[in-house]
């Protein structure tokens, strides 16, 4: 068995600091390898190093062999000759690798023409066959902007593999995809791994499980453990691996604790809501009552109008029909929103302390309430001295929760509050949000594309219709 891809003591350094510690691996035909770890673990750097695309201050040490050739002995031009023919890369965001002005089928046909030197008519036939193979047969004439995230990723997959490369490197190929589409991509990679070699990088334990093969768990540029997918995920030996497995919403503890028979005051009521966007009816005749301290989940695939519904309930977006009634006598600032990207909630020009002080001054609040609240959310008060972009995403999202809770809100609309966070952080933030909101008797409308997350954290769930 010849090794298609071989790394020997590959490490990545920037100046004096080592970003990825020496790692050795061999991928032969028919093998699948998945590198699992959270953001910042140096996973993406590894793929860039293999392709020879590390940005300048970073340097690679050790040996990379692609189909038996040491890439250090090859000129830049010879290295590039390997691309497409022997090794190809499936990027994180398909939008950046597709031509926005070229029809889908042409993007794949072009690879056959330019890399495989085939005649245009032959290339077109093959491209059409590839697209049908991934369920895009009807979408060949569409532009990338007219495709959904999952479709674009499948198209990128076709374009990346059309050159006939045996080795496919996939960098977070399922980022931002709904569960059904995520599974589809994982199946494609698994299939590709049977007649070639696939190196996948992901933070999603479920994707790693579905692709199978070998798994390497990485943390902070260091290999934590490696082994066969089934045995490693079934019985991990490292604590960090266990943590990663626990971070998937499927494994969260269920925090339902709401007794439905207790009568509570209504904080928000929607009657007969209807919203149409781009000629598509998102929902109609939708009635919803949210009671005090209740946690309501909304699920559905992307584009089904989950966020629009929340915005309508908060009055940020007009509904086409129907009305939203708030509880009488409650100040308007007690209905608040948590954003998907926590940066979206804060003015970037001021320090966090200033922003908190602004809120405290505006509403005449007691500044002594802040430290215990931060403690409740497991935040250090010293964080407030930093600027918005100097704290991590997980910390900033918890600070956003803290700022909202300062006002003792009755209703919080949390729009995918953890989907931009690492799995371990996401778990912590989601569980803290629901727990602390319940303690403050604040109702939460939690929107998420992940049905498990909603199932584990919410008192009841509203599923919005599937698109298309």
């Amino acid at each position: 068995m010849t090794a298609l891809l071989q790394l020997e003591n590959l490490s990545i350094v920037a100046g004096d600091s080592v970003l990825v510690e020496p790692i050795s691996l061999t991928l032969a035909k028919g093998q699948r390898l998945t590198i699992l770890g959270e953001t910042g673990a140096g996973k993406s750097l590894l793929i860039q190093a293999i392709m020879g695309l590390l940005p300048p201050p970073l340097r690679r040490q050790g040996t990379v062999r692609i189909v038996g050739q040491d890439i250090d002995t090859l000129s830049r031009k010879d290295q590039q000759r390997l691309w497409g023919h022997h090794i190809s890369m499936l990027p994180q965001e398909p939008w950046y690798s597709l031509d926005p002005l070229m029809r889908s089928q042409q993007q794949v046909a072009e690879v056959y023409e330019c890399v495989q030197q085939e005649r245009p008519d032959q290339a077109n036939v093959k491209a059409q066959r590839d697209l049908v193979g991934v369920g895009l047969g009807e979408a060949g004439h569409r532009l990338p902007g007219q495709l959904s995230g999952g479709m674009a990723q499948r198209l990128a997959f076709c374009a990346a593999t059309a050159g006939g490369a045996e080795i496919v490197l996939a960098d977070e190929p399922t980022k931002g995809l709904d569960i059904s589409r995520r599974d589809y991509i994982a199946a494609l990679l698994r299939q590709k791994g049977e007649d070639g070699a696939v190196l996948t990088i992901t933070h999603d334990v479920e994707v790693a499980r579905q692709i199978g093969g070998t798994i390497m768990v990485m943390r902070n540029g260091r290999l934590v453990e490696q082994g066969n997918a089934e045995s490693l995920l079934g019985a991990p030996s490292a604590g960090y691996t266990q943590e990663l497995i626990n971070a998937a919403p499927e494994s969260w503890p269920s925090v339902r604790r709401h007794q439905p028979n207790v009568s509570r005051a209504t904080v928000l009521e929607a009657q007969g809501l209807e919203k149409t966007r781009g000629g598509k009816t998102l929902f109609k005749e939708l009635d919803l009552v949210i009671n005090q301290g209740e946690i309501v989940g909304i699920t559905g695939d992307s584009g089904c109008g989950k966020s629009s519904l929340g915005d309508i309930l908060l009055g940020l977006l007009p509904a086409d029909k129907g009305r939203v009634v708030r509880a009488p006598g409650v100040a308007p600032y007690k209905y608040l929103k948590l954003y998907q990207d926590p940066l979206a909630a804060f003015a970037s020009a001021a320090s966090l302390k200033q922003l908190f002080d602004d809120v405290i001054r505006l509403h005449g609040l007691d500044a002594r309430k802040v430290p215990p609240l931060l403690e409740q959310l497991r935040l250090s008060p010293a964080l407030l001295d930093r600027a918005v972009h100097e704290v991590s995403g997980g910390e900033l999202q918890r600070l956003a929760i803290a700022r909202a809770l300062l006002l003792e809100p009755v209703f919080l609309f949390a729009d995918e509050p953890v989907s931009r966070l690492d799995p371990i952080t996401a778990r912590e933030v989601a569980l803290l949000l629901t727990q602390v909101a319940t303690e403050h008797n604040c109702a939460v409308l939690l929107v998420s594309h992940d049905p498990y997350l909603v199932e584990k954290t919410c008192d009841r769930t509203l599923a919005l219709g599937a698109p298309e």
Partner: protein
Amino acid sequence: MRRVKQLNGSQQIGAAILACLVGFAFLEWLLNGTDPAVQNLGNLFAAPSLAEPLGTDQFGRSMLARMGAALRLSLLLSLVCVLTSATIGVALGVLAGWREGWIDRIVSFVLNMVLALPGLVLILLFAGLAPGSLLMLYLGISLVLWVEYFRVVRAITRASVASSPMQASRMLGFGSFYCFKRHVWPALLTPVLTLAAFGAAASILALAALGFVAVGLRPPTAELGLMMVELFPYYSEAPWVLAQPVFAVFLLIIALNLLAGKTK
């Protein structure tokens, strides 16, 4: 001081050149008592000496005094024009971008009327109404310059008002003034300063251009464009004298353009 440190290399060079020119114009006014209009027909085109460091012109007038006066005129006029046009443009831009509706429509209509004429033609028109009047030049230049501020500020304001950080502040109960201070103003500051530097350069050029085609200020005023056209016939006799106003305009424009360059 903090702002100066934030400037990048070329901006620091621009600021340094500008500081030298301002320093020269100011010190000349403070220390050199010579009247720029006093003629001395017995001392035409004197070469630079200790008494006349920049030589004399075709009427024997002190070039040091004339350059100082011309620079002061250009710098002051550009400063006043920039302040006026920036104030009007930013105020209207914020108003139109924030409130939209009829205010936006009216101001945008006026803007399109101003834009329909090339800037210099409009300034010429104003200058033609009252030849030699500095006030008319000031009005004309300001009228042309505010358009840029308005367009940029309106676009940025619209984006800031629709942004989610401002939506979040609104929901927290903050009023319009707070939202302006925290969200709109920080986003406006850098582009407005950049526009101000370009605007100052544009007004200096406009003043010099009008002087050069003899519809601007009248002799014997010391003005850079006017000096160029007056000294032009003598370019073979005394090239160093003609070079002075040309070089001064060149330095002013390059300093302001460097200053307007990209921030880090």
